[in-house]
């Protein structure tokens, strides 16, 4: 390129780069620095080297939060399977199917706080779930769903799955509609039944969407916060049973004012996210190679 310097492309880019520079790039650099300091937001940071990381290593709650965040990743395969199933169902040409598609999308636009509040009361001691189970005679005494440590995380995950299926199935539906009809016809001629047809044609055809949803939903699972915040009434649950990485980060930084320590948690989260993204890039490359 032996072209003379032109300012135009840079002018087009200036607002975006300036905003992202100030509100994303600078904070990432700053948070790396803070992670090596003792910092309470009020007084200036004091350099402490690796102290935060050493402390993190011996912090039981941190390991618990890390475990919970990894457990939360189970939502990703479940979401992919259920969303594909739903996409296959709503891909049928049935009268009024548009209304159903719109209904399934409702949780995706309603906002996590509103949804979380409704779920919190569904699973309340005097909530709807207990009423139904008692009426059916399945349980005698109401269950304390959200005060039982082993149930908090599963309920939050169920909420994430419930709220996500409609959203992700739209992506899969678009993928399905791009698969040529002839492939299905060929499969039928080869003697495939309905299920085999989807196994041999739909799944390979949906590969880009599966990778995309896999990445998006697992990154979302790693940084889950709102659901936990509302379902546990800002506490993180009995015995920290619902504390995830971002929830712990939030508590350390903005409740306990341990900003330096929270920055170290943030860096750990970043490292995990980077590993995930690298795996994802490898998957994408393999996909390109297959073409």
């Amino acid at each position: 390129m032996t072209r003379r310097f032109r300012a135009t492309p840079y002018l087009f880019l200036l607002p975006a780069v300036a905003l992202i520079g100030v509100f994303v790039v600078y904070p990432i650099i700053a948070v790396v620095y803070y992670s090596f300091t003792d910092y309470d937001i009020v007084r200036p940071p004091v350099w402490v080297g690796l102290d935060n990381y050493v402390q993190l290593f011996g912090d039981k709650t941190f390991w618990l939060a890390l475990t919970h965040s990894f457990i939360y990743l189970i939502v990703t395969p479940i979401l992919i399977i259920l969303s594909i199933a739903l996409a296959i169902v709503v891909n049928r040409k049935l009268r009024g199917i548009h209304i159903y598609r719109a209904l399934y999308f409702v949780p995706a636009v309603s906002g996590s706080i509103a949804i979380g509040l409704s779920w919190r009361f569904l699973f309340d001691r005097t909530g709807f779930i207990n009423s139904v189970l008692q009426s059916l005679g399945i349980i005698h005494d109401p269950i304390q769903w959200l005060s039982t440590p082993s149930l908090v995380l599963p309920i939050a995950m169920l909420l994430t799955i419930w709220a996500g299926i409609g959203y992700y199935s739209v992506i899969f539906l678009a993928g399905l509609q791009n698969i040529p009809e002839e492939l299905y016809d060929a499969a039928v001629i080869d003697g495939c039944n309905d299920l085999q047809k989807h196994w041999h044609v739909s799944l390979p055809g949906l590969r880009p969407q599966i990778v995309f949803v896999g990445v998006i939903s697992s990154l979302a699972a790693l940084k889950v916060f709102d659901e936990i915040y509302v379902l546990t009434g800002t506490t993180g649950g009995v015995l920290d049973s619902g504390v995830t990485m971002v929830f712990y980060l939030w508590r350390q930084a903005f409740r306990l004012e341990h900003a330096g320590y929270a920055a170290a948690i943030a860096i750990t989260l970043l490292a995990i996210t980077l590993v995930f993204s690298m795996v994802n890039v490898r998957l994408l490359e393999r996909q390109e190679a297959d073409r």
Partner: protein
Amino acid sequence: MSGLDVARRDLPGVGPGAGPEAEALASRARRARRRRRRLAGNAAWYAILTAFAIVTVFPFLWMLLSSLKGPLDPIASVPPQLIPGHPTLDNYTRVLASLPIVTFFQNSIVVAIFVTGFNVLVSTMAAYPLAKMRFRGREAIFYLLLATLIVPAQLTYIPSFILAVNFFHYYDTLPAVILPGLASAFNIFLMRQAFRGVPNDLIDAARVDGAGEWRVWWQILVPIVRPSMAAVAIFTFVTSWNDFLWPSLMLHTRTGMTLPVGLAALQGFFSSDFRAIAAGVTMTVVPILLFFIVVQRWFVRGLAGAVKG
């Protein structure tokens, strides 16, 4: 299936040589049978669709019905009572009297409009040179933006908080929620995809005719990528409308809160008064649902277009 067909063909009177009337009768019967089977099959599909629709919509329906319940209607009972026996709007007046829900709305609208407007403008601008111009540093800028995509936003909240308090001095005001959201790498990426789809010949022809880059952008390209701009706008609007964590860190004065932050405050304020919380949730969910119904088509198209293989 095929086994059945073979068996049927062997039936006396239906096979070849049974006469034209019998043939016609048989084919009509076959068609009726097929239609019945299809109807039965469709009924099964509708049953699945409806069951899932109930699961999806029920929590909202339950909130709506509970918000209309008076003090005499039990929230939890065995068996559960869904329909209020003494419907009342008291819960709504109680919530409106103690929390400025209307102000929450106004704040959310102001934030969402600024954030959406700027995102559409800024990403449509940035995407043009990234997709269609050659200049020094293009790859570097593009990969830097792409890299910010994978960084969880929550990671940036500690430094952003300090910036808000010490540098911008906008803590506890709406600009604190608006400014950090004005541009997003994701939107730039989406718009770049749209610009890449525009044929180069079109741009070259305009340049030959003497149009400057800004005119090419505004008069040729913007009209073409408008559907993508709509998708970016709708996504950004809904995301901004529902954003919670960052606004909850910034907004503490009651009259300055956005809806999700106010809703969380409602939970603290009415703690176990479920009827009031149900009224609050209903009031916040209904408008965004109406908005969604209006823009549904573009929303779904945008989401589908975002992941083309």
